[in-house]
């Protein structure tokens, strides 16, 4: 079992080793991919893998029209992996498109290969390189060192007659075929009349000039003429040290001559009214941070101008009609990019808008007019309109929202409709002139009058006791007579009934004549009644009735019911007559 395990482990390691052998790689890299005639292409073939250092030099395919030189090799180790690099120089003898860098390596019976890279060889210098010129009239200034053409500098522009605001690229190139010692320094020229932007570092390379191979390095600067007419780019200076291991080091400097260009003014023909000096080529777009916003809240609209040109000159973005919004000054930001040695980027305006009225509304388009220097025409670009839904807000624009400024009325209109009705009736009913209207006056007046009369009568009665007794005498009499009737009908005591009749008669007469209780006796009543104008007959009947009642009260026999009723009837008759007399 143990032997089997050792054998299996050994097989595994052998297999892994075989796999490692199979992982030997061959790669090809070409730089640059575009060059002028007689300029050099550097081809680097890299062998990587565990045994790369012992695999030998790969064979490169030599296409027709190229002279190939082997330069040398280098070894590097990275993460336990060996990389062996072999460098070749390909010098083209004719122009055209080619495939170079194909390589093969025979190793342990295997053929490993690397694919080539397409390149282009042009008749002149490389277009994107340091020595490129875009026009036959491009300004050029060259300075050569005193020892011949071992080192020389060159400055040139890509346009000699740009428009105002159009980019002009200034290139300063140092060519050398010797080894420079110590630090070297570039002093840029004076650029009066230009707005300048430094451009990214140019990758150096080699170039063959007049049969000599030079290393070159370049510095590019974007210039924008700010005025029309002749403008001068000053002298550019390159300072460096010459010397060697066995010779004395000495300083030197090379200076280019000034370059003059003529800046043209922008054409007047076709200039839009809203043109504000932007030169270049731009696109514009506008976006809102939300599609729905409440009235009184804010929505941010971002307007971006993207393109090439001097963005500082892009100031004329024309906003649309924003009368439905309260607006604030936009926040402007700018991001420059200068890829491809052309200045451009993005300039952004952030508009904060506060809608005032609910409903659907449309913002935009924002527009920008600029001069396209490539076509020589003015163009106007517009953003896509933005649809916005404004919902009713919870706060009025006057009291909430951004800031604390008073609301400025920006428009006037009639107020909106009244709301829907569940029923529709006329409200043209006049209150005045109607019966309820008059009752509204009559009822309080009548109530007041009634209360007034009642109060007056009550006050009079309160002040005059005799009158009060006389007014209430009949009411009291009725109560007393009622009591006598009940006594009779209940077959009660005849004495009690007669006493009630006597009390009723005497009290009534006393009330009517305002006499004190007890002042009237059966004996004195006839005389009293006579004094107050009561006829003798009535006074006599009264006295007799009272006497009869007294007799029944104080006799032991009493009186039967019919007799009592007769006395009561007589009493009623007397009282009716007395009421008329007293």
């Amino acid at each position, binding site marked *: 079992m143990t032997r089997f395990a050792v054998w299996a482990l050994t097989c595994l390691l052998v297999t892994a080793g075989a796999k490692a052998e199979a992982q030997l790689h061959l790669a090809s890299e070409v730089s640059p991919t575009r060059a002028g005639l007689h300029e050099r292409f550097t081809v680097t073939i890299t062998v990587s893998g565990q045994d790369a250092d012992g695999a030998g030099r790969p064979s490169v395919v030599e296409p027709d029209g190229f002279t190939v030189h082997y330069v040398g090799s280098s070894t590097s180790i990275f993460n336990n992996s060996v990389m062996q690099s072999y460098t070749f120089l390909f010098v083209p003898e004719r122009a055209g498109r080619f495939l170079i860098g194909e390589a093969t390596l025979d190793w342990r019976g295997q053929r490993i290969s690397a694919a080539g890279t397409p390149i282009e060889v042009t008749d002149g210098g490389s277009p994107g390189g340091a020595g490129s010129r875009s026009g036959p009239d491009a300004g050029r200034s060259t300075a050569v060192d005193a020892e011949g053409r071992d080192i020389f500098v060159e400055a040139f522009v890509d346009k000699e007659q740009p428009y105002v605001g159009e980019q002009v690229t200034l290139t300063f190139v140092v060519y050398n075929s010797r080894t420079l010692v110590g630090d070297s320094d570039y002093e840029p020229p004076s650029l009066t009349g230009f707005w300048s932007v430094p451009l990214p570092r140019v990758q150096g390379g080699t170039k063959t000039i007049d049969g000599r191979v030079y290393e070159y390095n370049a510095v590019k600067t974007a210039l924008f003429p700010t005025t029309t007419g002749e403008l001068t780019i000053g002298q550019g200076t390159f300072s460096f040290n010459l010397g060697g291991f066995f010779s004395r080091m000495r300083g030197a400097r090379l200076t280019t001559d000034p370059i003059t260009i003529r800046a043209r003014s922008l054409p007047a023909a076709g200039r839009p009214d809203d043109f504000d000096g932007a030169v270049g080529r731009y696109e514009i777009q506008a976006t809102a941070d939300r599609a729905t916003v409440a009235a009184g809240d804010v929505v941010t609209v971002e307007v971006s101008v993207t393109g090439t040109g001097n963005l500082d000159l892009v100031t004329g973005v024309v906003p649309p009609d924003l009368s439905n919004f309260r607006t604030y000054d936009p926040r402007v930001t700018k991001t420059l990019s200068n890829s491809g040695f052309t200045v451009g980027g993005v300039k952004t305006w952030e508009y904060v808008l506060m809608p005032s009225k609910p409903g659907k509304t449309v913002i935009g388009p924002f527009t920008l007019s600029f001069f396209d220097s490539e076509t020589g025409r003015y163009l106007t670009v517009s953003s896509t309109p933005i649809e916005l839904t404004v919902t009713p807000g919870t706060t009025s624009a006057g009291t909430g929202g951004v800031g604390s400024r008073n609301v400025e009325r920006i428009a*006037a*209109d*009639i*107020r*909106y*409709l*009244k*709301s*829907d*009705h*569940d*029923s*529709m*009736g*006329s*409200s*043209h*009913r*006049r*209150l*005045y002139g109607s019966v309820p*209207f008059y009752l*509204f*006056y009559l*009822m*309080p*007046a009548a*109530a*007041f009058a009634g*209360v*007034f009369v009642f*109060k007056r009568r009550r006050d009079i009665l309160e002040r005059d006791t005799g009158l009060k007794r006389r007014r209430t005498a009949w009411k009291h009499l009725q109560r007393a007579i009622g009591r006598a009737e009940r006594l009779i009908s209940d077959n009660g005591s005849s004495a009690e009934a007669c006493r009630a009749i006597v009390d009723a008669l005497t009290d009534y007469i006393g009330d009517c004549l305002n006499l004190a209780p007890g002042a009237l006796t059966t004996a004195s009543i006839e005389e009293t009644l006579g004094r107050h104008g009561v006829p003798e007959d009535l006074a006599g009947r009264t006295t007799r009735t009272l006497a009869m009642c007294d007799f029944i009260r104080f006799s032991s026999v009493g009186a039967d019911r019919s007799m009592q009723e007769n006395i009561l009837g007589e009493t009623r008759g007397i009282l009716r007559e007395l009421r008329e007399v007293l």
Partner: protein
Amino acid sequence: MRGILCAGIILLVAALLAATAAFCADDDAAAYNKAGALYREGRFGESLSIYEDILGRGIRNPDLLYNAGCAAFRTDDLGKAVLYLERARALAPSDEDILANLSYLNSIKQDQEPESGNTLLVFFSRQYRAITPNGAALWSGIAFALLMGTLTFALFLAGWRRIAVLAGAGIFGIIFLAATITLAEKVNHERTVVEAVVMADEAPAYSGPDTDNVHIFTLHEGTVVIVERTQDDWVLVRLRSGAAGWLRNDLIERI
């Protein structure tokens, strides 16, 4: 038996009339709401047509007249807009929307209503115009009832209490007098002053009821005038500024 039958028939007829009235009211409300929906869709002409149909049935409602005024304005009929809004104001003189729209229309029409420069006077004038006859009647009636009530109460009081209550009665008496005078003035104004709105784009006013007279001024659509008197097809109108002239009757519409 005959009496019961008659009473039953009367009750039935009354119930039918009430039901018909209720149905018509619901019908008018539905039409009113439909006109509002058309307005909201921007179909102002159709909306106005429906509002005018309802008005043609004798309905006098301030909201209805207000909406009709809005729809007329949206159809660029300034004269009708002013007419309906003035009629709405006659029914609801303190309605903020009506007053705001009339103020707006006054600001855009060619002949603008003169307004006093005295702010206090303008304020009181507006407050006075906002009082309706019904409002004045209500104030008058309530003040009178309170006056009677306080006087009655004072009958049962003596000393300083009576004096205090009588002072209150005096205040109610003043309110009653003011409200009653206002009511009388309003009623008198309603009965004697006839206002009208110029409906034509231009209405030439002459010094007499004929075009042979001197053309003294020209009124424009939406101007409110006071009708002084009528003669044949002509009316003598007076402006709030005091100027007077004769217009053709068909150029104006009475409020």
